[in-house]
């Protein structure tokens, strides 16, 4: 009944288009990138020669180490706050029996579908020296000089937190699916008050979702460059902005490629750590 040859033929047709598309749009770029990072040619063109110079620049220049640690700090702080703020929303959305629930869910996710560039501009208007917050503070005579909320690390972090929150909300929401009301009732029956129910039941059970959210946010945060550039006032040096400026300002593509691969290495190690954590959690 199962004809091996025809089965293999079918499989080939199922896989071929996908492999072709991903081959051109993903595998080849990554291979080129790898090649370019070892090249002397300005654009990683075929006429370049092999060199390790780009990597030695990246590895031995303390500036790039600083950029790397900046990136990590940036990623971790964005991740921490994005998850912290998303959790109550996700919890609220799973709990609420309000008939506005659909709309509220849509609202929580709508920002996801709005250009990050545009939202960043919104943040500039809010956080700028003459923005909504400083304006109100000064109008209320709480401060006389503006507080620097934008054009620095703080501003880039605040905006990025908001921009990535919808992803975190979605991930935590799907993680909270494991929770059922009966578990909480069972805990209450056994004498757990509300706080203890949260701490001992809800939180541990939602941890996998939280971890997924954290990973997602972290990955997106450390590779972002639009928000750090626009909100950072040029002061935020992270790998994303460096890759972009090496590629477009100084036109050193091999270095950009090497930096990009460095970014990838940071990613992969974080993902491996994440997998470990998840497995530890499930074991």
């Amino acid at each position, binding site marked *: 009944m199962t004809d091996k040859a025809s089965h293999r033929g079918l499989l080939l047709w199922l896989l071929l288009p996908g492999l072709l598309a991903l081959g051109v749009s993903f595998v080849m770029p990554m291979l080129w990138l790898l090649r370019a990072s070892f090249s002397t040619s300005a654009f990683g063109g075929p006429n370049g020669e092999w060199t390790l110079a780009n990597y030695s620049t990246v590895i031995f220049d303390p500036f790039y180490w600083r950029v790397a640690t900046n990136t990590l700090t940036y990623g971790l702080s964005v991740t921490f706050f994005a998850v912290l703020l998303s959790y109550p929303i996700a919890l609220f959305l799973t709990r609420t029996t309000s008939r506005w629930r659909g709309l509220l869910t849509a609202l929580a996710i709508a920002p996801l579908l709005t250009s990050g560039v545009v939202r960043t501009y*919104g943040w500039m208007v809010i956080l700028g020296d003459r923005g909504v917050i400083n304006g109100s503070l000064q109008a209320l005579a709480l401060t006389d000089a503006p507080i620097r909320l934008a054009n620095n690390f703080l501003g880039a972090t605040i905006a990025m937190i908001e921009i990535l929150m919808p992803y975190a909300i979605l991930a935590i929401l799907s993680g909270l699916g494991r929770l059922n009301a009966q578990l909480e009732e069972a805990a209450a029956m056994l004498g757990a008050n509300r706080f203890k129910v949260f701490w001992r039941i809800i939180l541990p059970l939602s941890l996998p979702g939280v971890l997924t959210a954290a990973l997602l946010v972290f990955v997106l945060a450390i590779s972002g460059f639009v928000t750090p550039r626009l909100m950072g006032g040029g002061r935020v040096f992270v790998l994303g902005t460096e890759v972009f400026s090496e590629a477009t300002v100084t036109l050193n593509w091999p270095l950009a490629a090497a930096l990009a691969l460095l970014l990838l290495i940071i990613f992969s190690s974080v993902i491996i750590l994440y997998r470990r954590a998840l497995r530890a959690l499930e074991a």
Partner: protein
Amino acid sequence: MNQTSLLARWSWRLLITAIYLFLLAPILIVFIVSFDTRQYLAFPPESYSLGSYALVFQNATFIGAFWRSLGIGIVVGFGAVAIGTLLSLALTRHRFRGEGAVNFLVIAPFIVPNIVLGVGLVLVLANFGLLDTYPGIILAHLGVTIPYTVRTVSMSLSSVDRRVEEAAMVHGASPLKVFWRITLPLIRPGLIAGWVIAFLISFDETTISLFLVSVKASTLPTEIYRYLEYSTDPQIAALSVILILISLVVVIALERLIGLRKAV
């Protein structure tokens, strides 16, 4: 009930409202600013008008880029769903050597930052002469969207009861007929969700597009980004509001159709 729980309930509500406010603040600001009459973004507006909206509808660059993005998004949607469906079928319904590798290939683009992919894509597409062309940008967007469609389609494929397919087969349907008459209609919600997600990602993708397109195939996000390099005026806010409304409609339709949580 008692006092403390009332207090707890109200502080909980306050917290949720505050976070929502934080989440929606930039959108709200953009909405308000879009009615300003000044030529730059500032808050609060001096006076209100719909002038910026009129300007957006007269802006040939935006209109052109909008239609291009729409076209690209639609093609990417269909392409990603078709290819994603085939891949999902292979991955969920067959055992084969190299399955692990294909599985990895399908999630890897998730974890490679777009900016990294963008640099690599320029190098490859330039080589094929595909920079700033429709095939080029569509291929690039397929790469980032296929992982999503594979995920949604696989999810609906694995929720299809295999026995329903077996029942069709027992009652006389050949494998191809089973696919057309049973499997495909049953995974339709997943296909629609996949299409919408792929469309939205393509429609909103900035990072990679910035590397790949300049004039001929420029998309709306790249035009917005480029416009913002030289000016910020309420026009951009008005355009954003229009786009937000479009995405809200899409989100709500999606929620109605299949429930968002299943889709993403």
